[in-house]
């Protein structure tokens, strides 16, 4: 039975996953109503969990250290309520070896920008990873619906990377690296692990 996460958990978790984002981007992460998200973020701000910070000329919401702890406390509670600990732990174990390969693959392309063979190898491998990610995601979403979407985003990034390699690891688009790394963060946060 798929568990549906609460609105407040999703808002706080969206801040964790987007890292540093404006209200609209936080709301988009789980397709929530921006007005309601802003209200929830403002409440979170009064509780000391989220903060709008500005550094250089960037402004966005991020979690405070207290917010991270609150986020992890709620995720753990949800994990047990959804009876999903076994599934998420098993997926995390299968994720780790893939994680090393994905990072090496993206690194290989970065280190040899003109090497079309490296790009080809990377594209092929990431296509295969996308297929594996679909299976990992379905194992996660079976108990916990909020894990939906990683596969579609990753596959889109791989698809677009075929023509524009920015979609491999650029930080300005929803690239393979960004999606992959966000899933890593999600798994770590959910299981209460440190990197």
């Amino acid at each position: 039975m798929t568990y549906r996460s609460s609105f407040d958990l999703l808002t706080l978790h969206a801040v964790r996953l987007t890292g540093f984002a404006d209200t609209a981007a936080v709301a988009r992460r789980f397709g929530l109503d921006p007005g309601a998200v802003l209200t929830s973020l403002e409440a979170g701000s009064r509780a000391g969990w989220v903060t709008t910070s500005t550094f250089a000329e960037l402004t966005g919401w991020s979690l405070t250290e207290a917010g991270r702890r609150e986020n992890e406390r709620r995720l753990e509670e949800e994990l047990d309520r959804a009876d999903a600990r076994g599934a998420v732990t098993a997926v995390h174990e299968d994720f780790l070896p893939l994680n090393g390969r994905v990072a090496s693959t993206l690194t290989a392309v970065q280190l040899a920008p003109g090497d079309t063979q490296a790009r080809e190898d990377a594209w092929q491998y990431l296509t295969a990873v996308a297929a594996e990610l679909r299976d990992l995601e379905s194992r996660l979403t079976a108990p916990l619906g909020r894990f939906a979407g990683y596969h579609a985003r990753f596959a889109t990034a791989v698809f677009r990377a075929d023509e524009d390699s920015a979609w491999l690891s650029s930080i300005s688009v929803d690239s393979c690296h960004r999606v992959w790394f966000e899933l890593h963060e999600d798994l770590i946060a959910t299981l209460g692990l440190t990197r």
Partner: protein
Amino acid sequence: MTYGVRVGVIDLAVSDESCGAKARQLGVLGRAGFDVPAGFVVTADVSVDDPAAAEQVAQALDRLTRRAVAVRSSAGSEDGATASFAGQFESVLGVVGGEAVVAAVERCATSGRTRRARSYAARVGVPTEERVPVIVQQLVEADASGVAFTRDPVTGSTSVVVNASWGLGPSVVDGIVTPDTMTVGVDGRVECILGSKTSRLDLVEGRLQRSDVPPGDRGRLCLSTALLRRLAREARRAERIVGWPLDVEWAVQGDQLWILQARPITRTGPRATTPITPPVTPMTSMTAVTPVTPVTSTMRPDEGTPRAAGDTLLISGTPSSPGRATGPARLVHDVDDFVHVQRGDVLVCRTTDPAWTPLLSVVAAAVTETGGQLSHAAIVARELGIPAVVGAAGALAVVPSGRPVVVDGSRGTVSHAVARAREILEP
């Protein structure tokens, strides 16, 4: 497609083209006197569903002296530059018993059937094998293992770069731990960066088991200088024999050095195409400035000092994104510190996660205490074209907050910037 004239179960020591590229390479190295673990190849035309073939596999297994084996596909395409993707990533370690070996052989043999392999073959114009040859080798119950590159993957120089960790190979190959990184220059200079090596994979009573590495072992290099030099010599000799830069998978058991696999490097660092002057790097270690991880006494002392005049080394780590930048050090312990960061700062932190990505986009350079060349900070820094040094343990304790520092992401050093820094900061 067929593989030459030989079909069946073939001793690895006499393997040739019919056995696939990996096995052929191991056959060449074995015949050249390298220590390659004993094993055999099941050629692509053999189906282990055939009882006679299964019997041949069982007999070949009986001839091996150790119970556990490693089973790997040996992709068919010969040229490393267009090596078949088919089965490139298929390998099964620690397989025990005839039935399990037959199943693992079947899995690796049919890895060429996957959609990804066919699509790849169509794109690059090489034929896809329906089955690929499979290597079955005695598993080396390694004390330490890793990879050795005969080209530096960051600088492209001809130094041998070794990544090493305790136990069996996947810890390094899959990027599960931060390995020791040891570089042996062409002039024989050794440079070592201690990795954290938090866990290890071993064969325990016939089963693979991952366990924590005791603190004492985390804090020391997992290869002696003598073994390291032997490994570098062997890797260079292998490169001469094969005629191409190599990525060598190795394992050490006691004093015995084993060569497990040797693949051509098809990508080298950014400077690989220009003539390389080996970087004259002093024998430094990040351990020199952190009390928890003593420098091993077998290493040569710091010989000084090819760094730019005026810089005083504060700490070193793994060079992860090339380039050199100067800026005031900003020590960021957690997201609550983000507000203090200004454009052009040098970010010094423990590690990074998605919240830190925008931070990386405004700083001049990044220094992290944990992680390796594949970490989030390293990948994002390379993407942004800023220098990065990762795995610089203790950086938060030794880098003085607010003072100008120079980060050299090609050498992996963070130095105190004196006088010169002012010119850069205030032109």
